[in-house]
């Protein structure tokens, strides 16, 4: 099958292998090893890992457009947040009459605002299938419209980065308004259960962690299949010499649009998996700073490798967890220092270390003695 083609590559086998091993290990250490044992992984940590994995999926989505298409999106947080809101709306509807105000249909914040009925765009979100579909379609639709306008007008480079940043900023301001019907600055929270499972139970948390791992694996495979296809090579060609690619007869803007929409959908999926694990979605996810941070993860991990994005997202967020626990004020300095150090010593990111070793091995096996020198 087309999606299974990446399994021919060593790096994909390795990545999926490590991911599955990590998922199994965490599950075993959580379930089998008794609480109190030093190796026991508690529910809080499982939840934390689940959060990292959803960030990793988001980073993969950003690397797909930045690394392979050369589009530096500084607004991918918007797609992540919209996916998150779609999930949040479903979770809000699942609360039912258990909210503070006990209204069987309206979420608490709407009762508080004295709204009479659900706005039209909340309809259908009580059904899981519809909400999960919207997790993909809503960010995809936004990316489609935005990308269509941007790529058709051949907006590229730093100008595109700036308008993606403006996009997420505008959405943040909009979502802060109570009139929008998304809970204003408080966002959506106080979730109870998902698909009938109690969100506060350890089993559900483990399930969400595993689901996020599966989504990351599937998203990674999809991206690998894309970048490994001829379309992926057209993307790289576009990244490096757009005019030349157009001259070869490829409608560059359509390729950009396709990949941008796929990436936005993956970001939306990541957001949807993130929200039930952290228990809240609010407009701060739209903040331009967050979108820039995602790009930092990818840069630190190594651009245009996909697995580098995963490494970067997990490393930076782990460091963030540690630092904000130990000395919260120093976190931004630590992030800055990490960025400077990696830029100076590892220009291709952490993944550059692997790629360098792989390449050396390949070069050794490639260079056959007695090769004709034509230049």
């Amino acid at each position, binding site marked *: 099958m087309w999606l299974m083609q990446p399994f021919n590559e060593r790096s994909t086998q390795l990545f999926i292998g490590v991911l599955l091993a990590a998922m199994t290990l965490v599950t075993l250490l959580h379930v089998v090893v008794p609480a109190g044992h030093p190796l026991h992984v508690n529910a809080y940590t499982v939840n934390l890992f689940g959060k990292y994995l959803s960030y990793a999926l988001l980073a993969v989505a950003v690397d797909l457009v930045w690394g392979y298409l050369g589009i530096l999106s500084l607004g991918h947080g918007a797609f992540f947040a919209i996916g998150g809101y779609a999930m949040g709306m479903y979770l809000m509807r699942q609360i039912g009459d258990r909210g503070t105000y006990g209204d069987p249909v309206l979420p608490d914040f709407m009762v508080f605002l004295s709204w009479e009925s659900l706005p039209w765009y909340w309809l259908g979100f009580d059904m899981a299938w519809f909400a999960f579909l919207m997790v993909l379609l809503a960010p995809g639709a936004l990316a489609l419209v935005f990308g269509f306008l941007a790529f058709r007008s051949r907006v590229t480079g730093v100008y595109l980065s700036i308008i993606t940043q403006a996009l997420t900023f505008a959405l943040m301001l909009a979502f802060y308004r109570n009139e929008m019907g998304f809970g204003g600055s408080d966002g959506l929270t106080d979730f109870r259960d998902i698909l009938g499972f109690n969100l506060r139970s350890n089993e559900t948390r483990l399930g969400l962690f595993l689901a996020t791992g599966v989504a990351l694996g599937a998203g990674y495979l999809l991206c690998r299949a894309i970048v490994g296809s001829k379309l992926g090579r057209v993307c790289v060609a576009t990244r490096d010499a757009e005019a030349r690619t157009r001259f070869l007869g490829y409608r560059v803007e*359509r390729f950009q649009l396709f990949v941008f929409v796929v990436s936005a959908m993956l970001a939306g999926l990541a957001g949807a998996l993130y929200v039930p694990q952290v228990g809240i979605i609010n407009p701060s996810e739209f903040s331009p700073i967050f979108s820039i941070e995602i790009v930092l993860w990818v840069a630190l991990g190594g651009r245009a490798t996909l697995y580098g994005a995963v490494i970067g997202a997990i490393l930076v967020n782990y460091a963030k967890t540690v630092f904000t626990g130990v000395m919260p004020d120093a976190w931004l300095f630590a992030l800055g220092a990490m960025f400077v150090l990696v830029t100076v010593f590892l220009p291709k990111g952490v993944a550059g270390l692997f790629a360098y070793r792989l390449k050396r091995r390949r070069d050794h096996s490639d260079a056959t003695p007695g090769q004709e020198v034509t230049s």
Partner: protein
Amino acid sequence: MSLIKSLSQRDRVFDFMAPAESPVDVRHGPILYMEDVTVSFDGFKAINDLNLTVDDGELRCIIGPNGAGKTTMMDIITGKTRPDQGKVWFGARHNLLTMNEPDIAALGIGRKFQKPTVFEALSVFENLELAMTADKRVLPTLFARLEGPARERIDEVLEMTGLAEQRRRPAGVLSHGQKQWLEIGMLLMQRPRLLLVDEPVAGMTEQEMERTAELLTGLAGKQSVVVVEHDMGFVRSIARKVTVLHQGSVLAEGSMDQVQNDPRVIEVYLGESEEAA
């Protein structure tokens, strides 16, 4: 607009009615026919009453001092620049002045620009793969698989351009000369009827020039090739027929020897360049 246009395009309704072979009509000999072409930019006549005929399968060299209108001539043929007056025909059927750039390219006119632009991050093989004639829409490209004949065509072009050894290497590590050959190879992947090659040997070593000469003379016969070049030694080594442009029109035409002995040519061009060399 484009929708209306495509709907009203009745000749493409039945795909099987479209001619399978390249529809260029060369029964009368010439593949490229330019008559009385004039272009002026702000009053300056870059091309002035130019008449040029290139036969099918011919290898033609165009020489001329700077500002003679060589590049403008290429621009007119590829549809980039519209002449003020004149006729430009491709074969006996296609009036190039009524067609746009992509259509002209699709018709089989390939152009190699002076500065080689290959996709440096992709391998030599992949560069050729992308240049290949294929369905270039998004989804067919996503699911495209390299079939036998396509693979053979790439191998063939790799042989022709002498890049077979380099097939797996990223194009970015190629030497300047190899990049030029790869670029020519990328044009060949589209099986053009007419190749326009702009200064192929600029910046090449002697050895590379020889290889380029072999490559271009090897192409002639199967394709028609028009080479614009400054390097006299190189032109002498490949050309059977040379056209000298001067101030936008043809000053002389003929074999290298004839042209070289033409006093007008010596005056405007060869004299200077021989001195310089």
